[in-house]
């Protein structure tokens, strides 16, 4: 089972959990409809598309309403800390959750108590919490963009807003230096997928795959196009692919989907997601 955990932009810090369904436009967890925006909703939608494509089981999710106060995030951390051993997912994919280092440590400790430790994936603020708390080594897959890679490379930063000026170059040409620095500092998961003008897949500090075609600069502007990659990777891993193969397929499908919709800065992520089934059939 792929278990997706994150917050959704709804006031009222309640939990929503269950099987995720997506019919091409409508996303639901159990019977609760979720607006398909950028963030965890986009990630879950893309994961559903891949699960359907692969003929594997639909993902499950635990979502919490949180508009930034952190109340929903804390509920989610507590739920995972108390219930992960019983849930024992094959893959735990953590996403938009307020970074709280101590609570992330508790979730990692709970994951260790599962019968079989889940494949641990983190993107967005869950990745910030994992790195800041010194837990990166316990994760199997991180999916940063370039600025988040700069954050992983900064030994002291506990959020990308506080990275050193000398590291903030936002230039993919610097990727090798950032990878080396982050690997040296043990801030990397076992597999790191860098999303950018040139996508990189890194394993044990070494570049295993790069992709820069089709070249679609507008994808960077479209909110949610990194989330879709993370969701697809989780679903491909759940379908039995190696982490490297899952990353390569997701990166290719995301670019292809962007090409199919002729992505422009005004394109919305729902249009990209709608094109993923066709993109997967091209791969």
């Amino acid at each position, binding site marked *: 089972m792929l278990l997706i955990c994150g*917050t*959704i*932009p709804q006031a009222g810090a309640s939990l929503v959990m269950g099987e995720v369904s997506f019919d091409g436009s409508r996303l639901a967890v159990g019977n609760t409809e979720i*607006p398909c*925006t*950028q*963030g*965890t*909703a986009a990630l879950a939608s893309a994961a559903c598309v891949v699960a359907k494509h692969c003929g594997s089981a639909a993902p499950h999710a635990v979502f919490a309403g*949180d*508009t*930034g*106060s*952190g109340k*929903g*995030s804390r509920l989610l951390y507590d739920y995972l800390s108390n219930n992960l051993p019983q849930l024992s997912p094959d893959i735990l994919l953590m*996403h*938009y959750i*307020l*970074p*709280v*280092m*101590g609570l992330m440590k508790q979730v990692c400790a709970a994951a260790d108590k599962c019968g079989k430790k889940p494949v641990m994936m983190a*993107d*967005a*603020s*869950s*990745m*910030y919490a994992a790195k*800041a708390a010194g837990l990166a080594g316990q994760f199997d897959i991180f999916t940063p*963009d370039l*600025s*988040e890679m700069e*954050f992983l490379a*900064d030994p*002291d*930063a*506990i*959020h*990308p*807003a*506080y*990275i*050193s*000026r000398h590291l*903030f170059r*936002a230039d993919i040409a610097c990727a090798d230096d950032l990878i080396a620095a982050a690997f040296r500092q043990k801030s990397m998961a076992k597999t790191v997928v860098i999303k950018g003008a040139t996508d990189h897949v890194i394993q044990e500090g070494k570049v295993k795959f790069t992709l820069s075609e089709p070249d679609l*600069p*507008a994808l*960077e*502007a*479209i*909110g949610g*196009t*990194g989330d879709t990659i993370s969701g697809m990777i989780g679903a491909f891993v759940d379908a039995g692919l190696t982490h490297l193969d899952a990353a390569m397929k997701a990166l290719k499908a995301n670019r292809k989907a962007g090409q199919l919709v002729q992505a*422009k*800065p*005004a*394109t*919305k992520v729902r249009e990209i997601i709608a094109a993923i089934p066709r993109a997967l059939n091209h791969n």
Partner: protein
Amino acid sequence: MFFKKTKRQARFAGGGLVLFQSVEEAIAAEKTLRAHGYEVKLVAPPPKLRKGCDLAVEINIVEKAGVERLLRQQDAHFLEILPLKGVGELLDIVKVVNFDNACMVKAGNMKLTFDINTGVILNISGGGCPDIPFLHLAMVDKKITEVARPKENGHTLCALMLDRAFVEAAEIFNKEEI
């Protein structure tokens, strides 16, 4: 000075400090923040960060935007909010990428893209804190001159980075309009 701490408080490590001129201000701010649901604790600031008094409030630095706004709303006096490690200043470098009829402004991990002719916010990307999807819903497809600054409604460092991009984007749009 002795403060009894719960187990959870004792374990709390938030990575940020609010510094105060006086001990009374620190104690009052800690009460205010706690009453509004923030996880905080009173600590002695490390010598290299010490300014004012020898008592500070440790906060989750990611919640800087919300903490700062609340303390100002409550007229709570404080000197500064700083991370415990690394650089003390928020990243202030902004980069601009131009597309046909659109402009993307990047500040740290956040990107805001707007239509240069109409000022409509086309997309917000990057970031990872839970207020970003909320701000995305509140701002996208609206004119940059007609929405609130992200720091007015956001709670986190991602919101502050988005605010930095927003201010720059508004400036670029206003210049284009002239």
